[in-house]
């Protein structure tokens, strides 16, 4: 038996070119359609076994929410079938259709009744729901004054008060604080052990990898990939940050030769590379240009995911248009929020020993190599080339701030941003043993 069977599923929304078109379709004799079908999902096939946890990923508009709605049954498929077994609880978007004017408690009753529970059953469950949601006196206030986090807390508590056979969660967790999210995932983990099937849509790749063994990547309404969550999420990140699927020579290159490969050509191809951020801030006084870059980690070019602490090479290519007696390439890592994590340049990295000069027409490739001692997350890379004395005044030739986004992955996360690689050991208390022998 399978928990969810999706067979040839497709969903099209009708798009009417004019207001009258629908009327014509309803009234005029004959079955001539007056609408254009907009296919949101097409030819989706998969089965999910009981107790399996499956993540669904895809960019905005890929059809994730529509798919979940079809599985939940709020939408009806245009083609194909969906079969589910057992009791299904779904949290589609925020709140489960809470009524803003009623109190949290009344809404819990309504939610319970919508799940087909009787008043007495809900009364029995209520203390537990209240305790789990942990929103205090707000339970007796109208939902309209709730924060989105509180709504989510109450909705999750109510939806999961009884263990469902299938639990569907669409992005809802994102608004909860870290503490409550952890609590939710604890409950989900317990349900999973007891045999609940989980279907999770999340933009947090970390959550998908952590909680699902399997993931499905949707792209333009098709199943693009269905496989282990790590594989699929990597592919998803490639999609997100624009890695071209062309067959590159991956990992075959010896350490360092990538840089020489890059020397060929003097076109500005920076913006065509995977991970490039259009929102970059490019500025400088001129006299040169940063043309290209390459990131290599664990033998992979432009990796969609860099393992935390993996040695990573950042190459970038500069064309000089003027003569410079001293040039200083620089490199900077920031968080998405803009916090400077680490910045260095050729002078600092070589402790003042390096001195570079350039002539007009020169093309040079520079490399910064460092371990990515960072926590799981996305980070922005900036490259820069300056001229002048690194100690007194550096004149920017060109800087490309926040021009590349990388993703660092880490299975077990620590607190904070930077991995200071603490080690840990327990020191046996020898003194007490000695004390015993003394007596």
């Amino acid at each position, binding site marked *: 038996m399978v928990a969810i069977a999706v067979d040839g599923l497709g969903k099209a929304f009708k798009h009417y070119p004019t207001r009258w078109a629908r*009327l014509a379709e*309803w009234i005029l004799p004959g079955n001539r359609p007056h609408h254009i079908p907009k296919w949101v999902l097409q030819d989706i096939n998969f089965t999910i076994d009981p107790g399996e946890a499956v993540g669904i990923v895809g960019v905005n508009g890929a059809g994730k929410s529509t798919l979940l709605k079809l599985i*939940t049954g709020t939408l*009806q498929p245009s083609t194909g079938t969906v079969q589910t077994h057992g009791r299904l609880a*779904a949290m589609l978007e925020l709140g*489960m*259709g809470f009524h803003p004017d009623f109190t949290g408690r009344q809404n819990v*009753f309504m939610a319970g*009744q919508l799940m087909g529970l009787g*008043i007495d059953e809900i009364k029995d469950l209520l203390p537990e729901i209240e305790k789990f949601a942990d929103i205090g006196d707000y339970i007796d206030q109208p939902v309209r004054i709730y924060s989105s986090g509180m709504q989510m807390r109450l909705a999750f508590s109510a939806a999961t008060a009884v263990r469902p056979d299938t639990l569907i969660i669409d992005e809802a967790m994102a608004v909860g604080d870290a503490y409550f999210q952890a609590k939710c995932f604890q409950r989900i983990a317990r349900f999973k052990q007891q045999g609940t099937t989980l279907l999770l849509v999340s933009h947090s790749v970390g959550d998908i990898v952590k909680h699902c063994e399997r993931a499905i990547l949707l792209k333009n309404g098709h199943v693009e990939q269905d496989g282990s969550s790590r594989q699929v999420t990597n592919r998803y990140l490639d999609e997100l940050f624009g890695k071209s699927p062309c067959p590159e020579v991956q990992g075959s290159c010896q350490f360092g030769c990538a840089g020489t490969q890059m020397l060929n050509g003097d076109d500005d191809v920076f913006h065509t590379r995977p991970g490039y951020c259009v929102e970059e801030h490019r500025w400088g006084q001129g006299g040169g240009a940063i043309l290209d870059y390459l990131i290599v980690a664990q033998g992979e070019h432009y990796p969609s995911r860099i393992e935390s602490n993996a040695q990573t090479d950042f190459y970038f290519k500069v064309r000089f248009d003027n003569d410079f007696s001293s040039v200083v390439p620089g490199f900077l890592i920031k968080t998405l929020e803009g916090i400077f994590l680490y910045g260095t340049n050729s002078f600092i990295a070589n402790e003042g020993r390096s001195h570079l000069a350039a002539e007009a027409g020169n093309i040079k490739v520079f490399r910064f190599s460092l371990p990515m001692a960072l926590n799981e997350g996305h980070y922005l890379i900036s490259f820069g080339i300056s001229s002048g004395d690194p100690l007194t005044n550096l004149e920017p030739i060109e800087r490309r701030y926040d021009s590349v986004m990388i993703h660092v992955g880490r299975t077990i996360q620590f607190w904070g941003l930077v991995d200071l690689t603490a080690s840990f050991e327990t020191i046996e208390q020898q003194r007490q043993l000695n004390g015993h022998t003394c007596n």
Partner: protein
Amino acid sequence: MFHALWNYRSFIAGSVKREFQLKYRNSILGAAWTFLNPLAMIIVYTVIFSQIMRMKLPEVDSTFAYSIYLCAGLLTWGLFAEITTRAQNIFLENANLLKKINFPRLCLPVTVVAGAGLNFAIIFGLFTCFLILSGNFPGWTYLALLPVLAVQIAFAIGLGIVIGVLNVFFRDVGQLFTVVLQFWFWLTPIVYPISILSERVRGMIAFNPMTQLMAAYQTILVTGQWPDWISLWPVTALALLLCSWGMLLFRRSAGEMVDEL
């Protein structure tokens, strides 16, 4: 279908209760408004038509006759109007629910009927008390109200579902029906007796399905006689037709409806 509805009885009962609470949540007089409203209307009509315009019912001669005649039509019309106007917006109002939760959608029209029925029961109960106290209680014929009410409710909800479904796709339907309902009220002998109309107009008014229903209520409550059952057949047939058409339309468009909300 009925099984599914039965499983969700708790939701239906809860919805009716919540709606009732919601309506009077921030009012001091609360549920009293349920009958204060029609009471005011009855007083207005009684004063204007019975006292000022000196209109008397030709058949009976009693002090309260006109008031009773008026209530018989006005209160039951109120039930009809409430069911149809609520049903016409029921799917639009609950878009949020329909999109997020999978539950038997037929719960919604059932909730409408139950809610309107509750309001009607309150006010009609009071009216019955008045009949008993004023010595105008019609006796056993009172029971004849039940089948007439059943036909009327079936007619109202059938029409309501049809309009409710159409209203999701063509919002004009809702607007139009509000206007139609106004005309319909005055084209039905509720405030005035049918006898004041000319022969020709009377013939035309007979095609109004509400005329027979109202006539039945008025016969039962004013004269205490059994209604003319034969005259109710056309409206019964129409009610059944509307109910089945409504269900068919609802079944066929339930999926598309959620896409549209």
